[in-house]
């Protein structure tokens, strides 16, 4: 019962802080967005935070997140960031052209962003600014696809004032990807960052978005994000996520994608660890000839926990989904993978593939992996597979017989293991930078391909 009261206190903390939050909003409290916030807050009042008694959270104990009172960024007061544009570079991925949005503690920092020369027919803006200049672009769209909300989602929506809004008109191809840096934790107090992002890709449009989550220091913080994606007919949306926050921080994101006819949604998820990382990634394939691809790499060491829950909802016929998630766990790390696929009664001729592979680098690391296929149509092709193991002994021996020392041999095998996910990254210069991060996070000798 102790936990229950602890969680209750935490919830009350968030409920009680809303008043001072509202006071900081000034004119922003009389908008439809604020009505949505109040509605979310009301729901939060009677929604418990997830516990391990629930199937969806069985292996992920979030009580460390709930033992602390994180202060919503707005309550802390938004001040000009001390960081310079030059200092941002160490967090950004480079070697390619991109538009840049920077969020400090979840709040847009215009002076640290660069959205010059956006093509016609593309809106890339901060939710907060757009609410002032053109709220109609947001009204009726935001929160439309968020469903089955848990207390974290409600917490986000109650306190979120900002996020990246990307709206691409029909037929527009955005050539350069939009890199979005979410830099959190530059504060004495433990901050709650609650960005709410939305990508709307019109018919035949194409857009690539690279969300980078980083910590500006070593203090604890809680990033609790929502990203909604709408891909209209024949749109192609590539959404990359590189989560690279400090070991004391907590991270949760819900991605909710809704796809129409012939659209393609590619999600690339690189989780480099925090104390607890949880991703809920959902796609609804609500028309024919849709493609959904989920690729993931998850790394964890020390006592970190990384949990990826994916859910592909095949609602209509002739669609294809493909999922490949690979994990590398060291020390006492814990991994969770839950891949749910529903093929509804109408969704004949569905092709759905899912694969989860985890390599354990220590004897103490653990992973709980669960494919969850619910198939109600009779003419479908669905495969899934999950493997858990150590680095391949034969390959390890092979490399060493060439005079290569054991540590380097292991690094080569780690690189080889991650390769089939890394190599599908379309932004080529990202690949080596991702490899670099893999070795950096595992504290292993780096193998660079030259």
């Amino acid at each position, binding site marked *: 019962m102790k936990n229950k009261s602890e969680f209750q206190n935490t919830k009350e903390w968030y409920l009680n802080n809303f008043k001072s939050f509202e006071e900081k909003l000034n004119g922003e409290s009389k908008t439809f967005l604020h009505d949505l916030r109040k509605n979310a807050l009301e729901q939060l009042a009677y929604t418990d935070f997830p516990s391990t008694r629930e199937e969806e959270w069985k292996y992920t104990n979030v009580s460390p997140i709930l033992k602390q009172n994180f202060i919503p960024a707005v309550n802390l007061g938004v001040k000009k960031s001390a960081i310079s544009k030059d200092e941002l570079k160490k967090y950004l991925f480079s070697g390619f052209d991109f538009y840049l949005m920077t969020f400090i503690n979840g709040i847009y920092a215009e002076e640290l962003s660069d959205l010059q020369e956006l093509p016609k027919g593309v809106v890339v803006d901060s939710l907060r600014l757009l609410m002032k200049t053109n709220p109609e672009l947001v009204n009726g769209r935001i929160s439309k696809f968020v469903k089955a909300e848990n207390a974290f989602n409600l917490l986000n929506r109650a306190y979120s004032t900002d996020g990246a809004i990307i709206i691409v008109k029909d037929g527009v191809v955005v050539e350069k990807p939009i890199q979005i840096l979410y830099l959190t934790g530059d504060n004495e107090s433990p901050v709650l960052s609650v960005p709410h992002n939305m990508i709307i890709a019109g018919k035949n449009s194409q857009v690539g978005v690279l969300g980078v989550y980083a910590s500006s220091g070593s203090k604890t913080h809680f990033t609790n994000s929502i990203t909604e994606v709408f891909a209209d007919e024949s749109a192609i949306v590539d959404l990359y996520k590189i989560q690279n926050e400090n070991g004391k921080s907590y991270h949760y994101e819900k991605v909710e994608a809704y796809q129409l006819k012939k659209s393609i949604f590619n999600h690339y998820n690189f989780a480099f660890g925090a104390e607890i990382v949880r991703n809920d990634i959902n796609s609804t394939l609500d028309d024919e000839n849709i493609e959904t691809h989920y690729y993931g790499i998850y790394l964890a060491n020390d006592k970190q926990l990384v949990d990826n829950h994916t859910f592909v909802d095949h609602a209509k016929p002739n669609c294809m989904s493909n999922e490949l998630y690979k994990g590398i766990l060291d020390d006492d790390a814990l991994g969770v993978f839950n891949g749910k696929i529903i093929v509804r009664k109408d969704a004949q001729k569905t092709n759905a593939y899912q694969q989860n592979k985890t390599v354990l680098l220590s004897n103490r690391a653990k992973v709980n992996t669960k494919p969850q296929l619910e198939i109600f149509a009779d003419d479908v092709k669905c495969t899934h597979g999950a493997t858990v193991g150590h680095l391949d002994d034969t390959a390890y021996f092979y490399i060493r*017989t060439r005079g290569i020392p054991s540590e380097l041999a292991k690094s080569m095998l780690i*690189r080889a293991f991650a390769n089939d996910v890394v190599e599908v990254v379309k932004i080529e210069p990202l690949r080596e930078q991702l490899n670099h991060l893999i070795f950096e996070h595992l504290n292993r000798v780096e193998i660079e391909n*030259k």
Partner: protein
Amino acid sequence: MLVIKNLHANIEGKEILKGIDLEIKAGEVHAIMGPNGSGKSTLANVLAGNEGYEITGGEIIFEGKNLLELDPEDRAREGVFLAFQYPVEIPGVSNATFLKTAINEVRKYHNQPELTPKEFLDLMKEKSKILGMEESLISRSVNVGFSGGEKKRNEIFQLLMLNPKLALLDETDSGLDIDALKIVSNGVNIFKAKDKAVLVVTHYQRLLNYIQPDFVHVLYKGKIIKSGGKELALELEDKGYDWIKPELVESETV
């Protein structure tokens, strides 16, 4: 160069090698032949240091050093090379990266400076030409997307690049067509020198037409039951193994 004395080895508690004695001198080519399951591949793997096998007795002395005390990488640095029967794919690691790392690790062990990029590239070009390999292969991942024959060829390419003292060829001929067999054999013959030695492990005599052995040994049930010159290989090709199997030979004499 290599002295093996009364070598015993197990895998998962099952004895595979039951007392092997073999001496290989510099400049010699030895062939180990024998039916499936006789322990040929085990011998090659044990020499290279495969930790999947447990050594239960005997010794292996290579150039005066006790090989059994060395890790696989140190055996390689001392000059032992195993061309694998089933070469391993390493996606994401190019042949160039792989070989450059390997060569420089061996050089470091011998207190030699690393190869410059130019020296390395020249070496790659020279050796790949011998094996008729395309240069584009250099930037491709190790063995990924290679056919069985290409993988075997790549093993010999690595042999020439690393230029060890002792080459152990484990069923290098399997899966090769006649043209590939000639190319691979030519590579091995170029490697051959008076300060080098080769141990060919093979099921068939075919490869020995191109890589001429000085000695042929028949391995059967974990023991060398017959040794001879290269004519022994031809005899085996002709008559099979039955005529030298001890239990059959014994039953005939009874």
